[in-house]
């Protein structure tokens, strides 16, 4: 068995280079370049998985740096988590890229889009394979950069440019935490390798390191309070949203927590923080999703909520549950976004109040959407049911009643808002002049494939297959795992209830009841509708003071620094004017006067130089005569 895992990110990077350098030449073939790179990466990922199953582990390629007593190897980690993520990311990435051919058709920057997509894939795959924090951080920033580039892909729109900036800056806050966490590990434990996280020992310093690393995850995975960038990230093209939400960007945060799970589980405080941040995020994002009216933003909030679920799962100690949900969520959330993209592509609006009755015209998209919604709501046997149920039972088993209540309410809300979306978009009568039509095959085929995954992928972690997934991911946890039928029943019941309420409110009452509900819960509705005013609070607390500070600095710059510089310049001008005057009238005057005196003399003297030899002779002769006379008079 040859080690080929390190080649997995190379192909997308190569595709990026080709597309960014020769995009104008290859034009439409840039899609083929990117997709073939992704397919090769997928094949290599599967190969790596097979190698791993045959007993191959991590390996390092070469020594890169030696600093501060740490020898840094460029290495590759091959373990269940990485193998699973590699396969999931490459499958979903490939499907999304295929879908993008249809979605981005005719875009002016078609090949640049594929270049960025490849770079995104490559960075994520590199991140998954990194065996130390330094490499992880490099690719982590690469992922952040790509998200910026892709969210603000249509940078002609000011909102898209702003959203890209917001995503970049917000995640940067978390990344700073991560960087400090890595520094703590380097300086106090002299290690950057994930494999050594288990034997760090305890101490408040490492708890702080764990919390700081979690900060990075909070930023990337859009957890409260750094979730604000994700809904705005919807300004990007829909395949980008799908990629960010399913395979690459937000998965990185959860992956990081899972990767450092040993560190977290050694520090209870850090772990419980993860759980509560996740729980609060899950509930709070779900409530916003209930009242939002933008199809993509609802999905964005549902992503935040589901990521909260994963964090909660990891935080209560359910490692395999959290990772399992990460995987299933990747499939059905990619599917949801691609369906939403298909709908938007077809009718050209994102406002669900203007949609309705789309199902009649878009059967494949509609069916896929319903499947994905059932999956995310947690209806058996769809994918989301198994993973969400496992998280719920983990929470209950580890004794967090508050989180359990939060999680159950959230799953009720999830089912409700997803089916609110389904009923408003797909069924009923259309509420405005829209003309839906089914998208081309290149878009619907990825939908179909993902729909199959959304139905069946959950079964790998179900009791029907003896919890194969859990055994694979975390062998010593699954032994004590027994299906908790009470929790299963409860979560199914809650999901059903959510769907039923959605049906009641949005199908039967034709928008009447929601209006009354809105009036009845006026202030509360406004609070949630405005996303708890978090953007406004941030605006007031951070953005405006920063802007004010920036303006102050600008004024300082303009007044004092520029003033000093200008003053010096003005002084120099004055001095040089004086110097010029001296130069002109005194130095030049002296020189000119010398020249003029010489000139005056020469005016007289040159008359002697007639050029006639006889004149000279005459002068010489008379000179001689004069000399003789003088001699005679004086000498005698």
């Amino acid at each position, binding site marked *: 068995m040859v080690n080929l895992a390190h080649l997995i990110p190379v192909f997308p990077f190569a595709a990026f280079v080709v597309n960014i350098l020769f995009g104008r030449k290859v034009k439409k073939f840039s899609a083929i370049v990117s997709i073939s790179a992704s397919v090769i990466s997928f094949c290599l990922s599967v190969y790596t998985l097979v190698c791993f199953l045959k007993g191959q582990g991590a390996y390092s390629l070469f020594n890169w740096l030696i600093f501060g007593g740490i020898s840094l190897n460029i290495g590759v980690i091959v373990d269940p988590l990485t193998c699973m993520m590699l396969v999931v990311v490459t499958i979903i990435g490939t499907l999304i890229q295929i879908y993008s051919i249809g979605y981005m058709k005719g875009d002016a920057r078609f090949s640049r889009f594929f270049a960025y997509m490849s770079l995104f894939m490559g960075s994520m795959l590199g991140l998954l394979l990194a065996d130390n924090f330094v490499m992880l951080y490099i690719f982590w920033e690469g992922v952040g950069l790509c998200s910026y580039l892709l969210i603000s892909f249509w940078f002609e729109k000011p909102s898209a440019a702003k959203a890209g900036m917001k995503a970049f800056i917000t995640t940067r806050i978390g990344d700073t935490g991560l960087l400090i966490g890595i520094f703590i590990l380097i300086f106090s434990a002299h290690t950057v390798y994930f494999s050594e996280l288990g034997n760090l020992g305890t101490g408040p310093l490492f708890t702080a390191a764990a919390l700081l690393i979690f900060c990075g995850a909070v930023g990337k995975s859009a957890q409260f309070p750094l979730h604000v960038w994700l809904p705005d990230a919807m300004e990007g093209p829909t395949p980008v949203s799908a990629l960010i939400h399913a395979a690459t960007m937000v998965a990185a945060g959860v992956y990081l927590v899972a990767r450092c799970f040993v560190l977290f589980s050694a520090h209870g405080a850090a772990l419980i923080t993860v759980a509560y941040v996740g729980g609060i995020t899950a509930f709070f994002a779900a409530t916003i999703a209930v009242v939002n009216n933008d199809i993509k933003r609802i999905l964005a909030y549902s992503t935040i909520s589901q990521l909260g679920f994963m964090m909660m799962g990891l935080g209560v100690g359910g490692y395999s549950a959290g990772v399992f949900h990460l995987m299933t969520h990747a499939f059905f959330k990619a599917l949801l976004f691609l369906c939403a993209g298909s709908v938007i592509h077809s009718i050209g609006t994102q406002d669900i109040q203007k949609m309705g009755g789309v199902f009649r015209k878009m059967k494949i998209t509609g069916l896929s959407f319903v499947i994905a919604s059932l999956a995310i709501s947690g209806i058996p046997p769809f994918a989301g049911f198994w993973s969400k149920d496992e998280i719920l039972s983990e929470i209950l088993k580890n004794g967090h009643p508050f989180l359990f209540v939060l999680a159950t309410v959230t799953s009720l809300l999830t089912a409700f808002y997803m089916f609110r979306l389904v009923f408003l978009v797909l069924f009923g009568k259309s509420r405005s002049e829209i003309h839906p039509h089914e998208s081309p095959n290149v878009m619907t085929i990825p939908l179909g494939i993902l729909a199959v995954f959304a139905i069946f992928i959950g079964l790998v972690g179900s009791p029907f297959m003896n919890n194969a997934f859990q055994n694979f991911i975390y062998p010593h946890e699954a032994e004590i795992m027994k299906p908790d039928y009470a929790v299963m029943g409860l979560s199914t019941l809650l999901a059903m209830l959510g769907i039923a309420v959605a049906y009641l409110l949005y199908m039967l009452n034709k928008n009447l009841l929601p209006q009354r509900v809105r009036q009845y819960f006026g202030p509360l509705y406004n609070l949630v509708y405005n996303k708890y005013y978090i953007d406004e609070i941030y605006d007031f607390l951070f953005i405006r003071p920063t802007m004010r500070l920036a303006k102050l600095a600008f004024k300082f710059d303009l007044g004092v620094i520029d003033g000093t510089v200008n003053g010096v310049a003005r002084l120099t001008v004055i001095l040089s004017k004086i110097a010029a005057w001296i130069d002109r009238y005194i130095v030049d005057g002296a020189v000119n006067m010398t020249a003029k005196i010489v000139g005056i003399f020469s005016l007289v003297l040159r008359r002697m*130089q007639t050029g*006639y030899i006889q004149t000279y002779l005459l002068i010489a002769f008379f000179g001689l005569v004069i000399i003789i006379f003088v001699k005679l008079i004086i000498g005698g």
Partner: protein
Amino acid sequence: MIPESHFLILGAALFSIGVFGVFTRRNAIGILMSIELILNAANINLITFSKFSASPDGLGQIFALFVIAIAAASAVVGLCLVISIYRNSKTILVNKINLMKW
């Protein structure tokens, strides 16, 4: 017997005519001829003083012969110069030869 002073006056007159010619002639050949006059004035003086000296040993006359020979040579050189100037500038008028004038 012609007195000494008559010879000397002739010499001085010849010298003056020669000098005047040198200063006033514009023709290079004229200048050369005037120079010959000056040389001949000198010769007359040399012979006069040789003839009328207290011990006439004829040295002055020999010196005059030398001067005639050298004058002939210098006339050759001068005429050569005049010819080559004429070839170059198609003139022998010295005021027209102004190649080196400022």
